[in-house]
């Protein structure tokens, strides 16, 4: 197995999951508690990566980050190198790609918190921020874990976006799914098999965590 690609991918997925925790919670908060006529449009935009072909997303990211776009040029003037074909570029692409997998579980968890608790907290003089921190967040633990773990796993298996914006540089942008693809194309089935098995096991563990934290302990069966 290609350990370099493996650790690179784990690092990428970790960074993306942490970033999505930071961006995703405010976005989910806004979606849950703010009323706005056109909110459904924002929700649709956030959900886009679920249905959009990754290559489409990759194409737009490549165009947006490329040396011929304003964003790409601004980044280049800041850092001295272009954003496409770099690890940072992969992070940007992956954050967009996994956004709904963090925001949706967060928002779902926030919305199940009993509004009576929020009103009680407010009547006891707590500010909305304090209420959110002390009441909503602790009660949404399962949703937060789910969003974190799902965005981690989703980034781990990302292929189309990386293929479009990565450039397959060993140690920089060659992720594990690209490595598996390359090994298969080159006919090295046993190497591809090994790596694929590791991904399969990780995916299973991740989903076990998701279903584990969302389980109701008093349930006697999967049907509740």
């Amino acid at each position, binding site marked *: 197995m290609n350990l370099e690609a493996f650790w690179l991918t784990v690092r990428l997925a970790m960074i993306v999951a942490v970033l999505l925790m930071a961006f995703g919670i405010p976005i989910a908060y806004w979606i849950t508690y703010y009323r706005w006529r056109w909110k459904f449009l924002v929700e649709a935009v956030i959900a886009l990566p679920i249905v959009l072909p990754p290559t489409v997303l990759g194409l737009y990211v*490549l*165009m947006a980050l*490329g*040396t*011929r776009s304003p964003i790409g040029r601004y980044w280049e003037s800041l850092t001295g*190198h*272009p954003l*496409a*074909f770099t690890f940072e570029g992969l992070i940007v692409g992956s954050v967009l790609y996994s956004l709904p997998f963090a925001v949706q579980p967060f928002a779902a968890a926030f919305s199940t918190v009993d509004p009576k608790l929020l009103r009680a907290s407010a009547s006891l003089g707590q500010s909305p921020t304090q209420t959110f921190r002390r009441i909503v967040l602790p009660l949404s633990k399962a949703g937060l874990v789910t969003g974190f773990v799902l965005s981690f796993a989703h980034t781990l298996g990302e292929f189309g976006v990386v*293929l479009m914006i990565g*450039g*397959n*540089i060993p140690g920089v*942008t060659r992720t594990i799914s690209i490595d598996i693809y*390359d090994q*298969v*194309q*080159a*006919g090295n089935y046993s190497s591809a098999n090994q790596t694929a098995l590791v991904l399969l096991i990780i995916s299973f563990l991740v989903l076990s965590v998701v279903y584990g934290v969302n389980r109701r302990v008093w349930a006697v069966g999967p049907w509740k």
Partner: protein
Amino acid sequence: MFLRISLVALLLSICASAQEITVAAAADLSTALPEIVANYTKQSGQTVKLSFGSSGNLTTQIENGAPFDVFFSADESYPAQLIEKGLADKESLYRYAVGRLVLWVPNDVQLDVQKLGVKALLDPAVKKIAIANPLHAPYGRAAEAALKHLGVYDQISAKLVLGENISQAAQFVESGNAQAGLIALSHALSPSLKDKGHYWTVPLDAYPTLNQAAVVLSKSKQQAATRKFLDFVRGPEGTSLLKSYGFSLSAEKP
């Protein structure tokens, strides 16, 4: 009634698909082959479907049962591999072209690539260099060999980005995301790239000759139709079209 109509439609579609030829072709043919096929279809009425990829990629697909009739590789080793495994007919093997590698630089990169040659890659303006993936693309292997032969590989290896096949390498540099690329001459001469940059032809002795071979696949149910198409590609019209895209029949100067 509806059932009957859809049954007829189904039968028709099966008949239609039985008559078309499906071609697996190396990505460097993605500009020339569609034109050849268009001419052939106009003359013979035969539908030809094209699938492009890196030669290694297509070989893997064929080994796993992809329903292609003929395979145009960008080298000779992949067709040989298929013949050895009994998946392709040895007597149908023929060399249709010699591929040429060029160093292509887009217009917005201020480099006189024709004068500088491979030294252009050492310029600080070149931050990324696109090549095809050497693991499964013959053009990637040729690029790597040429860079080593010309003595710049160690200096520029950190700048390399790998396209999934030679077409993606061309797209990386055409979009300006890579500032230089070792791509196929056929791409450099194609209408979409011709006016967008300049190229330097990599000397033939810098890399193993890209003898591009085609072979009919044993599982093909369209043996006769496929061979007729191959004859057309081999004939004067096919040859002159290939030539206009920079493919020669021997390792001569284009």
